[in-house]
């Protein structure tokens, strides 16, 4: 600065000398002095630019690190609330509960240990019962940290209790002029996922991990995108008044999902499955209850349940010793097996219920009118195979209705042969076999490789397919296809979610029933419904009857692979009321734990028990004349050893017999081993 002034003095001196008067030329003087000021301005600019350069050069790395570190320190995520899952009546079947994590800030406490440490530790051990020594050692160990998550899942009540105590303590410290304070403790919001009904509907709902809140199986997985929200963020900074200011960007909570499941129906179904499992038992028992007129699943239960609140618990399936032997991989395998939704992910040979589709397709194509009659001699030879009917002695002459009622394999083979494989497999496609139903649940099995096509099906394949052997389906495929046949021909995509609500409860999306295609005409439906009604009223499905109701349905008994071991998969699919169904229920029992497994009545009686409770609940009223003697219906066909003549009679045609391929009949390979009702 002084240098500049020296220069200016010289300049001024020159100016003075130049002028001989009492004043110098003001403008010349100004310009000279202006140069000095300009010089200083430019000098200042250059110096400041240099200063910036220095700051960037020398401390760039250090400052960048500091910025990143305080980013962590002063801001935090605020968790969003994962959306609830409700049943169709608004009952919460999955919900997120706000809890708190107890955070200790050792750095703050250590900033003035004398004043903060004892007061803070003593209040923590008083309110929460933590060990004072442990707290002190944690604070000492992590003295540089500002964030120690000391405890999780602290309830709102506990949190408020602590905060009240804290205020009280600090007040009394203040009054007693003590400099001690409770300091450096805060609570962080967090959510835990709770399932109030435990294992109820576990296969449909699925569960969400508490750690990353991502869904696993069921609706939790399939609708994860809808259920998650956006985390909020809190930024803290000190303003120039030196007080801490916080800006909060609130989280967006996830949407609520309303399921089509009716928890009451679900519980009825689960109750009867559990009863059956505990009394007789089976490898797998599963049931689907759905509305055939819109594809809504009302209940879906299997005997393979798990507690949604504790999904990783293996105790129900493995003894502690077994668990101890399992390595991590085995455990993961065991768990994924338990979480597997049988009704959607597993395939099997459907057996007799598929006769409904054989008849329906043939009638739809005009191959049969319903008045045709077939002669069953107990077997039929197709492509060199001798394929037997359920009744070894043969059913004799039957019409189409009777063929369904008595579940005659021979009649089905005749019908399918008349129809031809082209048409038959075309219809299999129309009914959705071999393709996914696109149900809104994860893990649906792909059955496209498990069915035949017109190109690769031999005459034997066609014959066995006609009564439900030699190809695989899933439960949901069969239930959806059956619904379309009995409802007048509308194939609705089965679904378990009907609405998406926002976190405030306003509807943001209605999931309308999606009509995928028309399968059969009303005429066919009427014929089938009547035949199915008679199947239950007079035929093989008598065990499925529900007192006071017109029930339509079809039984199924399929011998499992490997043939000849006496292992069967029995099933019953039924619709009520038979002529205009409002509800369809499909019950499946895989390998019942009995000596004589080949009795569909295990499934039909389970159907009857379930429907006896569900129908009144659904306000579906009897349309059967009350005067009919309900007691005349066989109630426990195939199970009891009752010797009443009536039941004997019934037994004659309803007992399902399957002739295993023991090689004794001189026929090679598997198909001959198939026996059907």
């Amino acid at each position, binding site marked *: *600065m*002084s240098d500049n*002034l020296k220069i*200016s*003095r010289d300049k*001024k001196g020159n*100016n*003075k000398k130049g002028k001989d008067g*009492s*004043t*110098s030329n*003001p*403008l010349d*003087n*100004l*310009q000279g*002095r*202006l140069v000095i*000021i*300009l010089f200083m*301005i*430019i000098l*200042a*600019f250059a110096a*400041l*630019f240099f*200063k*910036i*350069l220095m*700051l*960037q050069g020398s*401390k*760039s790395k*250090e*400052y*960048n690190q*500091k*910025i990143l570190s*305080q*980013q962590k320190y*002063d*801001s935090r995520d605020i968790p969003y609330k994962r959306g609830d899952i409700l049943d169709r009546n608004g009952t919460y079947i999955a919900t997120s509960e706000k809890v708190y994590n107890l955070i200790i800030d050792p750095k703050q406490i250590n900033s003035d240990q004398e004043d903060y440490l004892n007061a803070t530790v003593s209040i923590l051990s008083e309110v929460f019962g933590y060990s004072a020594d442990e707290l002190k050692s944690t604070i000492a160990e992590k003295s540089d940290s500002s964030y120690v998550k000391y405890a999780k899942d602290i309830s709102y009540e506990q949190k408020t209790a602590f905060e009240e105590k804290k205020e009280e303590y600090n007040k009394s410290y203040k009054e007693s002029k003590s400099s001690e304070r409770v300091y450096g403790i805060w609570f962080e919001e967090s959510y835990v996922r709770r399932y109030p009904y435990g294992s109820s509907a576990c296969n449909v709902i699925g569960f969400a991990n508490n750690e990353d809140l991502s869904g696993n199986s069921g609706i939790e997985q399939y609708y994860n995108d809808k259920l998650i929200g956006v985390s909020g963020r809190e*930024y803290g*900074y*000190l*303003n*120039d*008044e*030196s007080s801490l*200011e916080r*800006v*909060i*960007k609130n989280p967006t909570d996830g949407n609520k999902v309303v399921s089509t499941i009716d928890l009451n129906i679900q519980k009825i179904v689960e109750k009867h499955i559990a009863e059956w499992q505990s009394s007789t038992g089976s490898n797998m028992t599963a049931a689907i209850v759905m509305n055939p007129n819109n594809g809504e699943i009302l209940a879906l239960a299997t005997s393979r349940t798990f507690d949604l609140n504790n999904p990783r618990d293996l105790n129900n399936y493995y003894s502690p010793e077994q668990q101890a032997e399992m390595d991590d991989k085995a455990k993961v395998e065991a768990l994924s097996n338990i979480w597997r939704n049988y009704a959607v992910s597993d395939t099997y040979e459907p057996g007799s219920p598929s006769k409904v589709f054989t008849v329906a397709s043939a009638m739809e194509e005009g191959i049969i009118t319903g008045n045709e009659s077939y002669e069953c001699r107990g077997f039929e030879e197709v492509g060199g195979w001798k394929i037997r009917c359920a009744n070894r002695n043969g059913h004799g002459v039957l019409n189409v209705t009777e063929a369904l009622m008595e579940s005659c394999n021979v009649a089905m083979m005749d019908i399918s042969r008349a129809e031809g494989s082209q048409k038959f497999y075309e219809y299999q496609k129309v009914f959705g076999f071999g393709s996914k139903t696109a149900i809104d649940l994860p893990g649906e099995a792909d059955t496209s490789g498990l069915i035949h096509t017109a190109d690769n099906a031999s005459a034997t394949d066609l014959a066995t397919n006609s009564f439900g052997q030699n190809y695989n389906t899933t439960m949901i495929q069969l239930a959806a296809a059956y619904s379309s046949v009995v409802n007048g021909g509308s194939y609705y995509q089965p679904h378990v979610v009907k609405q998406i609500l926002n976190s405030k409860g306003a509807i943001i999306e209605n999931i309308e029933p999606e009509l995928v295609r028309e399968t059969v005409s009303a005429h066919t439906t009427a014929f089938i419904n009547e035949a199915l009604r008679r199947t239950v009223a007079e035929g093989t499905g008598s065990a499925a009857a529900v007192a006071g109701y017109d029930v339509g349905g079809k039984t199924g008994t399929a011998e499992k692979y490997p043939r000849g071991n006496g292992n069967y998969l029995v099933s019953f699919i039924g619709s009520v009321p038979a002529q205009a169904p409002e509800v369809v229920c499909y019950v499946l029992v895989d390998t019942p734990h009995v000596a004589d497994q080949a009795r569909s009545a295990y499934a039909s009686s389970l159907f009857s028990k379930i429907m006896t409770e569900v129908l009144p609940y659904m306000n579906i009223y009897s349309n059967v004349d009350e005067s009919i003697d309900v007691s005349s219906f066989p109630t426990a066909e195939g199970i009891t050893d009752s010797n009443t003549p009536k039941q004997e009679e019934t037994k004659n045609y309803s007992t399902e017999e399957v002739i295993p391929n023991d090689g004794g009949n001189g026929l090679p390979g598997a198909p001959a081993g198939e026996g059907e009702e």
Partner: protein
Amino acid sequence: MADDIKKNKAKIKNVAKKELKNQAVKRKIKVEKGGQKKTKVDTAKENKIRKIGVKKPVVNDSKKNETKKRRFYDYSLIFTILFLLVLGLIMIYSASSYTADLKFKNSAYFVNKQLIFVVAGLILMIFVSIVPYQVWIKLSKLIYMVATALVGAVLVIGRDANGARRWINLFGIKFQPSEFVKVAIIIFSSYYLVKYKNDLHSTDRKVAEKKLWFLFGVIFVPTVLVMVENLSTSIIIFLIAFCMSFLGTSNKRLHTVGAIAMGVILFFSKPFVKFIYERGARDYHLTRLLVWAEPEKFSRDGGYQVIQGLYAIGSGSFFGKGLGQGMQKFFLPESQNDMIFAIIVEELGLFGAGLIMGAFVFLIYRMIKISFSVKDPEGVYLVVGILIHLSLQVILNIAVVTGVLPNTGVSLPFISYGGTSILVLLGEMGIVLSVARSIKLDY
């Protein structure tokens, strides 16, 4: 908003291009002018070049050629100002959008408000540029008195903002009267220095110093009134008057002593502040000085802002983190105000800092050219006064942001968020343009 930014970016590019062109042309002219100044030859060749749209100030003989002259309007100055204003708007959006979204549910809240002031300021600038600047000189005493009265009034009826009373609410619009004092002082000094130029340039030291002391006395009143609540503005007001009076006198003793005194104060202020703090002095201004003296120690008392500013500057590399990519705006309170330069360096890097400082240097250069081309001494003082004001604001702002000087709340001209500052500065630019218009161009 992203679209807006893109548009603005494009605008900047255009402006920058134009500016470069102008600079290029001007460089040519400068060479010519340098030659002409010495030889005072007016050739036809030069006139041809001037047709490109750049003006040729004529130093003498304007009366004779008056009919042939056209008025000079300094477009390169206007383009540079527009460039700074647009860049300012973009940076305000970048720095404030997050906070604005949280507080006002509108991420463009601050930008929109600033845009209104920018448009109003540009209209004011054009208006002032048309009004002959002699009007302000004639009204200088009145302007001075009104401004002084306003800063007096603000102490009584002013509104609190950030712990200091700086705002006054007039007809529903709040403004900072201290900003007007700066203009008032520039206008008054121009008037005074010209009116008493003979006395001020007297070889008799006593005569000159008497007039200088009187001027200081006049300046002293508003300076002290402003100082009560706004130390930094009062320093700027004083420095404007100090520099202008330095230019307007042949006396050297007073200013030499003054400059040395200021240097000494600056040098000893850090130890002094620490000393009186240890003696127990506590005050709003003192806190800020303490923070400057020892930012790490007083980080909880506002040093936080300084440190966060330093982090921002230090972390921006040559090209910065990219527009909108900075992280420090979450930590720098009201980063769209005085600390915006830190955000600029963080996001646009040394390059952005150089661009802005270069633009200011160019503005200063244009004003110097105007002042050298104007014959009327009052016009010269006005332009030079405004030049000094602008430079001081830029230097002090950047010095604060880089931690060289204490955090005093000086805004960066044309860029920082703040309505009064923009209006006053664009008004001043109007005066510069008005002075420039008095330069006659010959065809």
